[in-house]
């Protein structure tokens, strides 16, 4: 199978500080791919590099076959139309209502009349489980969980083949987080969506991710969750076998083992 994302030997350096020292991995279509790492290991930098928002010091990143480190503006724009991103703190446009935020990418990409646009906004709100009245509200009037869901609704606005989620369940209550996991799984199963998520939520990792990339020592270790859990690297052991990790693993046995 041809990978959707190919990351090859990516090096990211800030001055004398090397964040990524030769990171390589593939993400395949229809996969839910988790990225994990301690604070300061460059998860966000990696995400920005894959999104084409940051030029790596060296190495290549291919998204759907296009090398985005060398692509020209038109190619880059075409690639960006194919993916949706939900940023960590939402990055909603504060001067637009929720409805306008979700309609923006659609209105920008195609010519649809107001009524159909509103219908599509309604669809995205329902998909992420927000009441329709939310469309009239401004981002500042939303709770943290609603901001996250709105961000995902906006990321889904163009029915992308590839969705990036940065800490999608952070700050959500357990019920909302569970609904979120179900939504991600549903989207993957029916839309054959590829999902790349940066997350620290061990439950979400266990329930949704097919494979996990762990950033340690400037490198990346990619494996299935079971493989990662069994890894002997001290940091990985601490991360996955701390008190919180042990609480999440029974589900691993059920979800992945069976």
């Amino acid at each position: 199978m041809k990978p959707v994302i190919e990351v090859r030997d990516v090096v990211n350096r800030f001055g004398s500080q090397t964040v990524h020292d030769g990171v390589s991995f593939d993400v395949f279509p229809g996969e839910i791919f988790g990225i994990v790492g301690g604070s300061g290991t460059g998860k966000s930098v990696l995400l920005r590099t894959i999104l084409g928002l940051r030029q790596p010091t060296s190495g290549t990143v291919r998204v759907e076959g296009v090398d985005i480190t060398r692509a020209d503006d038109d190619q880059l724009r075409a690639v960006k139309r194919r993916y949706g991103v939900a940023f960590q703190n939402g990055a909603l446009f504060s001067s637009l209502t929720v409805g306008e935020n979700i309609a923006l990418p659609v209105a920008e990409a195609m010519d649809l009349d107001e009524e159909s646009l509103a219908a599509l906004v309604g669809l995205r709100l329902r998909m992420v489980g927000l009441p329709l009245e939310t469309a009239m509200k401004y981002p500042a009037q939303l709770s943290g969980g609603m901001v996250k869901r709105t961000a995902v609704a906006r990321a889904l606005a163009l029915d992308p083949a590839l969705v990036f989620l940065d800490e999608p369940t952070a700050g959500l209550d357990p019920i909302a987080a569970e609904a979120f996991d179900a939504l991600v799984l549903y989207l993957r199963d029916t839309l054959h969506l590829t999902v790349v998520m940066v997350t620290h939520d061990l439950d979400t990792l266990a329930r949704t991710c097919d494979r996990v990339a762990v950033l340690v020592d400037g490198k990346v270790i990619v494996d299935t969750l079971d493989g990662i859990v069994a890894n002997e690297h001290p940091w990985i052991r601490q991360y996955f076998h701390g008190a919180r990790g042990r609480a999440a693993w029974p589900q691993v046995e059920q979800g992945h083992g069976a």
Partner: protein
Amino acid sequence: MGFQATLSDARDRLRIAGDCRMTDAPALDATLRALREARPASVVIDLTRAGELDIGPSWLLHRAIADLRGRGTSIGFEGPPPEHFAYLDGFTAVSAAPAPAAPRTWPMRWLVDFGMRMEERWRSWYEALDFGGRVLVTAATRWTSLRRLRLPSVVRHIHETGVQAIPIVAVIAFLISVISAYIGAQQLRPFGADIFTVDLVAIGVLRELGVLLTAIMVAGRSGSAYAAELGVMKLNNEVDALESMGMNPYEVLVLPRVLALVIAMPLLTVVADAMGLAGGAVLTGYLLDLPWEQFVARLDGAIGPTTFWAGLVKAPVFGFLIALTGTMRGLQVRDSSRELGRLTTVAVVQSIFLVILADAAFAIIFLEIDF
């Protein structure tokens, strides 16, 4: 396979072929619109040659079908329904989005609008008074201790609003004084009174131009900076964070900025006065062949003992008004980046307006007390 949606001439058969991606939504939407307008008694939707439908287009189709059914059209399918329909069926139970309430209209609406605007104006003045009062009270109660006056912060703001503004204030004062001297010389020469150009420049710069130009530059530079700084802090919840730590934002954020401008404005005005006089001297030297010594002698005769002070005494007042407007508008920022832009603009416009208003008040007072 490319997407195609075709409607039979009799409007009773909709054929969908190929994959329908989100980018095909406008084409599908147009066809569905035509179908809904035709309001046929029955429609057959032919999906035998349809590929995958994205969720977005599926929803448009799903909605159109629900709408047609609601108006008594019977719908038949050929081929399997789109795969997302089962998922979308769950959504139709939820009521449609409420239409935004139309603004109420009544006769004499303009009067209501006018009244509301006047009330808003009034409230804005009231808020300004309230804000100014709080700042003065804070200043009065923190006066006792140097630590509470936050001198490092005051010094930083004097550096940013005063020291760093010296080059631009100097250049502007020099140029404006050259321009006014040039016009003065031209107008006075026919009367043989061109020596009075020196009086014109000296009195003009010292009493009005120096301080007013400085105030306008500072309002543009620092009034906007104050509003934007505090506005972003407000949007970031930094002001809430300060208050939650038991710190008073008036003491920590507003007072140092106000003090800084009250101190920096007079100093900048002295710079502007000096550069203005230098500009006058240079121009009269060239244009009127007036030697330097004679310029100084004439200057000595032109200005009275109070001329310089009449300009300088206004400077701290202007500084106070600019800082107050900037910080107040900054702290009023709420919720969105657009508010930040709007209030920064308001800060600059209002502080310049207030400065000119205060200047007019000073002119009347000086006239009355013969200063």
